[in-house]
């Protein structure tokens, strides 16, 4: 009996069947694949092995502990090496955009909380930024400071939890995650005190913020921010020089700068690939020009760089927060000219974007002069950063794919919208 038939028997005995060389089943191509030199169609790796029946087709997800929600990767394995990986999503699709087109401009704000439910405040801000661009509304000084403070607190929250999740994906029994959540608790307590809710803050409005921060809140925030570097030091002691972490992350999931830019990858992932592009610096919004901070840039674009960029970014966020908390002026937090009800921006369109913790979060709005947006589009960083998931994972093992996915930092609420 030849090896080939043995392999086939082995596979069919396990009920696995043969992996089709074209890719996972269920594809329904609508148009024939393009002919043309511009888009270099990826060669089908390992097709010969697949024909021999030596490959294993595994659907990782949607009910899988490490897919960060209902996300699925259709993976073709050769041994434990990945030779094809197709991300599948939409399990959490609720047509957020249509939902918001059906309501007024104000009604969309609480929905934006639920996009990336870890960072509701930056979502709020990105949306009101687009509306403010569209309607030409400006926010008062104090509100701008509060926006920066809440956005940077959100960044601390997101990055620390992400590192925790990443280590969880690496199998660290949740210890770093628990430490991150310990700190997150302090941050969400601050959010609750300021906005009334821990996660779904619904805080920002066109032309300002909904509520003002008390002196006590600012004081407590200062304390939390001052304590935060201590936690970061501890975190780094625990992780950064850990040999297992180094071995697992260095050289894994490399992403070149060219591909990262071309694929529209943004946020810490892009900077880990060596591109110094942070919208806070490149096209400052709000009052970010006033603060002194640096943008950490990686070199290798692997998982370790992505991890380290986030750790370093947290330290920079602490720096911004300290400045903002020192300089915050007194004053109103809401522009009295900005209406909430019957808010009708002029006819036109606007694209507002900011540096959310996960990448560039953009809102594209078209107004037809009515109280409802004609088109409401969310440019979700998690979604677009997934474009190159397959490119990063090919040739690595299933174990690596899990942490590569973890290092992309996705939240399904935002991917599926």
């Amino acid at each position: 009996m030849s090896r080939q038939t043995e392999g086939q028997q082995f596979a069919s005995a396990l009920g696995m069947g043969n992996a089709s060389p074209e890719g996972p089943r269920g594809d329904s191509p609508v148009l024939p694949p393009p002919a043309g030199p511009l888009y270099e169609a990826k060669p089908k790796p390992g097709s010969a092995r697949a024909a021999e029946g030596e490959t294993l087709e595994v659907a990782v997800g949607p009910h899988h502990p490490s897919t960060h929600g209902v996300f699925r990767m259709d993976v073709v394995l050769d041994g434990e090496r990945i030779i094809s990986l197709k991300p599948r999503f939409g399990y959490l699709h609720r047509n957020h955009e249509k939902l918001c087109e059906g309501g007024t401009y104000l009604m969309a704000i609480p929905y934006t909380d639920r996009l990336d439910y870890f960072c509701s405040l930056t979502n709020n801000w990105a949306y009101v930024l687009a509306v403010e661009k569209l309607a030409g509304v400006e926010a008062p000084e104090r509100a701008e400071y509060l926006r920066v403070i809440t956005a940077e607190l959100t960044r601390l929250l997101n990055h620390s939890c992400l590192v925790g999740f990443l280590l969880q994906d690496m199998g660290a029994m949740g210890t770093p995650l628990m430490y991150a959540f310990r700190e997150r608790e302090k941050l969400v307590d601050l959010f609750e005190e300021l906005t009334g809710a821990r996660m779904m803050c619904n805080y920002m409005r066109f032309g300002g913020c909904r509520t003002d921060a008390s002196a006590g809140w600012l004081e407590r925030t200062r304390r939390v921010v001052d304590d935060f570097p201590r936690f970061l030091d501890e975190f780094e002691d625990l992780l950064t020089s850990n040999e297992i972490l180094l071995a697992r992350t260095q050289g894994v999931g490399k992403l070149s700068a060219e591909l990262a830019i071309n694929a529209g990858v943004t946020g810490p992932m892009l900077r880990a690939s060596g591109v110094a592009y942070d919208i806070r610096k490149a096209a400052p919004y709000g009052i970010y020009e006033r603060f002194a901070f640096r943008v950490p840039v990686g070199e290798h674009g692997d998982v370790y760089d992505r991890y380290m960029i986030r750790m370093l970014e947290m330290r920079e966020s602490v720096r911004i927060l300290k400045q903002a908390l020192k300089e915050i002026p007194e004053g109103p937090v809401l522009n009295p000219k900005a209406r909430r009800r019957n808010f009708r921006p002029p006819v036109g369109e606007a694209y507002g974007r900011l540096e959310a913790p996960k990448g560039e979060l953009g809102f594209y709005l078209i107004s037809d002069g009515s109280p409802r947006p004609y088109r409401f589009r969310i440019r979700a960083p998690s979604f677009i950063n997934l474009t190159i998931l397959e490119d990063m994972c090919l040739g690595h093992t299933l174990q690596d794919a899990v942490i590569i996915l973890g290092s992309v930092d996705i939240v399904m609420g935002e991917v599926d919208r």
Partner: protein
Amino acid sequence: MRDPEKSSELEETAPPGLPSFQEIRRILEERVEGLRLEFIPNPAAPDQSSFCVPTEFALETARILRDDPRFALDFCSNVTGVDWLDQTVEETILHRETTDEGERTIKEIVRRRRPGFLEAVYHLYSMRARRGPLVIRQRTANRIDRVRVASLTPIWRSAEFQEREVYDLFGVRFEGHPDLRRILMWDEFKDYPMRKDYVEPDDYEYEPTPQGEAAAKARRHYPYGGAR
């Protein structure tokens, strides 16, 4: 919005960091033979006005926008679709008439029925030069059967999933896309949910507390109870 005077005024503005729209149009039309760009003014945010690129030139135009150092728009941030239904538009048309007193411009307001179309909108930035956005659009001929535009995925990989999404939710077919499948809806789904005339299927999932439309639906689906 359709006032040509205003429009040409807006055309003199420039997107952040880039030459003015007029200049951009000149450069592009010079480099691509036969290209005619339509300027779409945006009164609310003039620096985010856009160009409508004819589908047959889209790929070439996009390549110039990416590779020409005057633009260097290496980063396609956002791709999205817009559904424009059939509508009656009022257009102001300027006639130039030569009379005895000299040249005279006559404004005429014309109402015409504009057939609906689908639109794909691209927001382009430059990471290298830190500028943008330049907004370009492609339009389909109608909303029913001639819904093809050129895919720009060969130029910007970031359009891959986003164009799939536009195809999925709006039904715009991207010619030249490497892997045009549904992305958020399931493969067997028939309609395009983000279209303005989308009718949601008449299904009803039990709701404990139906009100308004849901209550009517509940009565229809569960005539003997369920609804209050």
